[in-house]
């Protein structure tokens, strides 16, 4: 039994924290709200550290590490709201192949995963997030090597050099590598509530691409890895939010005593800790399953998404309320974590659909045959 990080993983985490501390990405996150060009861009940091090829096997120019290592780095990025572009890039590297994969691994090109959500026990189609509303949109269609369709709210797509698009040929999902600068591809950057994410809606009109050999299982795995990464970013933001909340609750006095001594404040901060520790355990579960128990990976990654999402929702609101009115002002950092929480919970299928998938996986295992 060993269910803690290895020495190498601790070192990886520390190195990431150090590398990400050199730019004040939290301040940049505020500036970017009014001027998008002020958004920090840590691609060079990612490239120099070898994160761009983290999940790519060594013989293909990568580092050959696993999902847990990637999640540890994402968590560090989440602490400082650092735009490292790995949420879009890393899942793309799981599907690309050949020259493109080597370019992505080396960081010469930035990838973006243009995801489709795998079928569930209730919905048998591959779908994408809609631009608005609850009805999910069909995944783009594939005809030969031509992709047609529209995908909304794609993380890191606005600055990508290569798109790895999930499109459906009949009922079979395929991954297609597409150069966004070519004809038939429209990338519409969107101004988002959390400007640390360069997001876009992407439209394909018979856009030609390279269909790669990835199977439906590979594609579903890339979706789960993306769930794990966005969850890990959230967990990192929770850690930072809790540290800041605790710090302030020791400095601020009311009625002659520190506010952290009041049970009303203390219990809420312990609730953040409880949700955070639960999410951390789920990250380890997802990392372990991703490496050693693939049949549990879907369940584990989505449970992590649910747990980390709930933790960040609560922690980001608590960070504001511990600070009182000042915590809700533009000048304060707390709203930047709140913005991160608000947008994250609605991306990549949203945390609600992740909860549904957790239930679906467990019900299917228990032999449920849901009524149509």
């Amino acid at each position, binding site marked *: *039994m060993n269910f803690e990080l290895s020495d190498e993983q601790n070192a990886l985490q520390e190195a990431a924290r150090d590398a990400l501390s050199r730019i004040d990405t939290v301040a940049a996150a505020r500036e970017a709200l009014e001027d998008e060009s002020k958004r920090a861009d840590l691609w060079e940091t990612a490239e120099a550290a070898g994160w761009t090829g983290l999940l790519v096997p060594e013989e293909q120019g990568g580092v050959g590490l696993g999902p847990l290592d990637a999640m540890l780095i994402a968590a560090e990025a989440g602490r400082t709201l650092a735009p490292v572009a790995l949420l879009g890039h890393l899942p793309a590297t799981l599907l690309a192949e050949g020259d493109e994969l080597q370019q992505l691994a080396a960081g010469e090109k930035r990838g973006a995963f243009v995801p489709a959500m795998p079928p569930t026990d209730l919905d048998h189609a591959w779908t994408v997030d809609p631009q608005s509303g609850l009805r999910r949109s069909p995944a783009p269609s594939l005809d030969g090597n031509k992709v047609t369709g529209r995908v909304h709210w794609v993380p890191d797509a606005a600055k990508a050099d290569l798109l790895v698009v999930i499109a459906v040929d009949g009922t079979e999902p395929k991954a297609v590598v597409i150069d966004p600068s070519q004809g038939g591809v429209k990338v519409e950057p969107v101004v988002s509530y959390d400007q640390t994410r360069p997001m876009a809606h992407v439209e394909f009109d018979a856009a030609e691409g390279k269909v790669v050999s990835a199977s439906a299982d590979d594609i579903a795995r890339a979706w789960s890895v993306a769930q794990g990464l966005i969850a890990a970013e959230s967990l990192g933001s929770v850690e930072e939010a809790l540290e800041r909340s605790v710090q302030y609750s020791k400095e601020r006095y009311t009625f002659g*005593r520190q506010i952290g001594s009041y049970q009303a404040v203390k*219990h809420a901060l312990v609730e953040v*800790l*409880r949700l955070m520790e639960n999410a951390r355990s789920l990250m380890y579960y997802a990392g372990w399953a991703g490496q050693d128990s693939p049949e549990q990976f879907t369940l584990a990654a989505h449970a992590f998404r649910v747990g980390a999402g709930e933790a960040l929702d609560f922690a980001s609101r608590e960070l504001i309320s511990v600070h009182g009115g000042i915590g809700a002002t533009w000048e304060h950092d707390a709203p930047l974590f709140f913005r991160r929480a608000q947008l994250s919970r609605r991306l990549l299928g949203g945390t609600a659909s992740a909860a549904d998938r*957790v239930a679906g996986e467990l*019900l299917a295992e*228990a032999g449920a045959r849901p*009524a149509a």
Partner: protein
Amino acid sequence: MDLNDTPEQAEYRAKVRSWIEANKAGAPGLGGAELGKEEAWIAERRDWQRKLAEGGFAGVTWPAEFGGQGLGPINQVIITQELQEAGVPGILDVIGIGMLGPTVIAHGTDDQKQRYLAPMLAADEVWCQLFSEPAAGSDLAGIQTKAEVQPDGSWKLNGQKVWTTNAHFASYGLILARTNSDVPKHKGMSMFIVPMDAEGVTIRPLRQITGEAEFNEVFFDDCVIPADAVVGPVDGGWMVALTTLLFERLAIGAGSEGFGYRADRFAAAIASDPVAAADHDVRHRLGKLATDLLALRFTGFRHLTAIERGGLPGSEAALGKVTAVKAAIAAGDLIADVIGPDALAEGEWAYLISFLPGLKSAGGTEEILRNMVGERVLGLPTEPRLDKGIPFNELRALEKEGASA
């Protein structure tokens, strides 16, 4: 990360497994005692513990000189896992072997160790823990049960204890009592061993919402115990009690799934209803509570790792109970919503639903756990205390004054 056994652990597990295989035909059932058959149930479970002890599978973490095996907590975890896997019960006297025996080993005299430990291990004498009182739970150091020294050096006990598991068939109890009321409350307590059949001891079962009487109330009226019944220093009982509570923490850390609240168990209860299995609200609630239970399970593996490395889980381990209770309450609500009022009739779900409100406060209320974790883990300041440095008898007077104002 590796959830597998080390070679030594695998070897030990194989040994445990083959012993269980050879002996499980004689094991009692897993269930509790049926009404009217309590004595037979207790006798069976005593025999089973004796057998486990003879096989070297009870008190494995106790030193060899006291009948244990001198092994680590991870060996205890392996035994518990294998017993569960085989569907046979573990030892009867979990509290004695897990917490009270180790306390005697840490603080008792040589004579006490010689006299009490071997019969405890063999279940010839079961023990109970006499700490909580009607007016002292979260604030355990506020106990009022008195032990007064007699001219011959013996002690006279007066007071009431509550929430005492197994008291009705226990031979001995470890009791925390006040020996000096003129000093602040933490400084005036002592720990004693009391025979449960001594004159002046009255035991009454305490029925809970479930209808069962898992606990007892125990009354002491001029109950006299000998001078050598003291465990640890006179007036040094608080330190002894902390040792017991430390072993409790270890037990909780090593068995966080011990309540049987598992995501797959609750999912199975819903899976049989096709309409429920397709209902969005049901699925959302199941997905959330299952996430909590999965987190609990893998947090347990983190605690085991800490234990295996020779440490203790951090104080935040106490939050595992909060998560377990919260998720199980959500599960009970959901399953009963799906089944309807039938779920509240006798059976698995009615029991779960009725058991949880009490579990929420057992082993420390949620509020006191959050205080403890907030202060120890997050380093948050304590609340100002009104009892600090005040002699216990003055404090009682102040409390009485406040209550009547």
